[in-house]
């Protein structure tokens, strides 16, 4: 039973999914559909005029309670390239006041005539709560606390697909602070759902309290896992983890779990390195490794807009019932 199976009215009158709150909302077929659509939008993005009228007349509002200029711009560019109108509400501006009830804020925004809300918050579950309060708008989770970041996982699947031809049978390791990572949760579901073998490589203190039901293996020995991998997916390590008694020091972390120059040489030919960004050079990965051919980090960023166009189109334009896609 997934969190999002609790949200009511999951599809609209034409059978299209109403929200993207977690990767589970799509399932493997849905992810495949997004991948195919992304190909079309990559082509659109390469045109002299990278724009299609598909969502003309629709309004997409970004509600970024937690600041992230990069992700917000990626979504807004995606909306604009679909000819939708964009409204921005961000934590920095006064438009999102802290004291106001979350529900009131959301209903006020919806009342302005909004077809989709892209919601990012530092607290897990907010997009799910928002989806329960809105009357007709679609909700896209742009990252909620430690819970999920579905569009990140989708663009990661797309990037891997372009480089390696597909995910079936690939050996992927997700390395680092899984416990506090919404990217890790979404990616585990997405990668495993598409047939990859996923291993979590992490010190015990940075793993979730319970991995029951997670389709993963676990290793605390990065060096032994490394040579067999097709994809090394590195997670960002936040410095606060030291003060929470989860790690003794950054140096010890880098020595045991960092993708150093030495470790990069252990990679099998054809293996790729990925990171959701922003990268802590020198901590989870050596600076020079990020710039090597083996790194797909810039492609991840580049694919972000096209993937988000695919998601917005699927929710607002396509009228497709993903369950039968």
């Amino acid at each position: 039973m997934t969190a999002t199976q609790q949200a009511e009215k999951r599809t609209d009158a034409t059978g299209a999914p109403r929200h993207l709150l977690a990767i589970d909302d799509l399932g493997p077929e849905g992810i495949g559909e997004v991948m195919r659509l992304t190909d079309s939008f990559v082509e659109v993005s390469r045109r002299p005029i990278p724009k299609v009228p598909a969502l003309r007349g629709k309004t997409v509002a970004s509600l970024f309670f937690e600041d992230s200029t990069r992700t917000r711009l990626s979504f807004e560019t995606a909306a604009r390239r679909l000819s939708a109108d964009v409204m921005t509400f961000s934590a920095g501006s006064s438009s999102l006041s802290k004291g106001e009830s979350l529900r009131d804020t959301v209903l006020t925004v919806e009342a302005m005539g909004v077809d989709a809300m892209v919601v990012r918050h530092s607290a897990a579950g907010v997009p799910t709560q928002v989806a329960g309060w809105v009357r007709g708008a679609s909700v896209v989770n742009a990252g909620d606390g430690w819970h999920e970041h579905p569009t990140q996982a989708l663009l990661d699947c797309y990037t891997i697909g372009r480089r390696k031809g597909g995910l079936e049978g690939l050996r992927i390791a997700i390395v680092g602070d899984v416990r506090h990572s919404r990217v890790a949760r979404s990616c585990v579901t997405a990668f495993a759902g598409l047939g990859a073998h996923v291993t979590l490589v992490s010190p015990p203190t940075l793993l979730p309290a319970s991995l029951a039901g997670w389709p993963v293996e676990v290793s605390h020995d990065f060096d032994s896992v490394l040579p067999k991998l097709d994809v090394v997916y590195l997670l960002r390590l936040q410095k606060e983890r030291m003060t929470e008694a989860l790690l003794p020091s950054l140096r010890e972390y880098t020595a045991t779990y960092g993708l150093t120059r030495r470790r990069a040489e252990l990679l099998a030919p054809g293996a790729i390195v990925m990171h959701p960004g922003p990268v802590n050079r020198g901590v989870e990965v050596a600076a020079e490794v990020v710039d090597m051919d083996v790194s797909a980090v810039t492609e991840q960023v580049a694919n972000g807009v096209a993937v988000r166009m695919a998601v917005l189109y699927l929710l607002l334009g396509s009228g497709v019932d993903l369950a039968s896609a």
Partner: protein
Amino acid sequence: MDAEDVRRATWRMAHEIVERNPDPSQLAIIGLQTGGVWLAERLARIVGEVTGGDVEMGTLDVAFYRDDIGLRPVLPEAATHIPVDLTGTTVVLVDDVLFTGRTIRAALNALGDYGRARAVQLAVMVDRGHRELPIRPDYVGKNLPTRRDEMVDATEEGVVIGDVQVP
């Protein structure tokens, strides 16, 4: 129409295109996905043979320009590949069947994003009537009056009219 009829009609249309557009370097033949691509390929080949030069060919999926997005499932079916800047070019849009004209209107909108064409002409294997917009073809394989609820299938193998399947 059987396969032989289709072949002859294609041959005739290609010659009409050359007649109107003597310089193949100014031409781009663009097939609409997915029904018009086979015809565009054949026309491009014959035009190339007749003129002794190479004519540019491309494909176009108009899903994102359709006016019925949100009313029913609309997903792109295949790739859009337009190899050249269309500014100053004469584009010949190619489709298998011309019906309401809405697909062609969507294609005209899409083409606009690839540059300002000098002219756009339309080639179709079958014109089945029932236009809802002021669109007319320049090159027609055959005019076939049909009922609204009939289905028309036009491929290299021939043209077939059938009844709409009632679910």
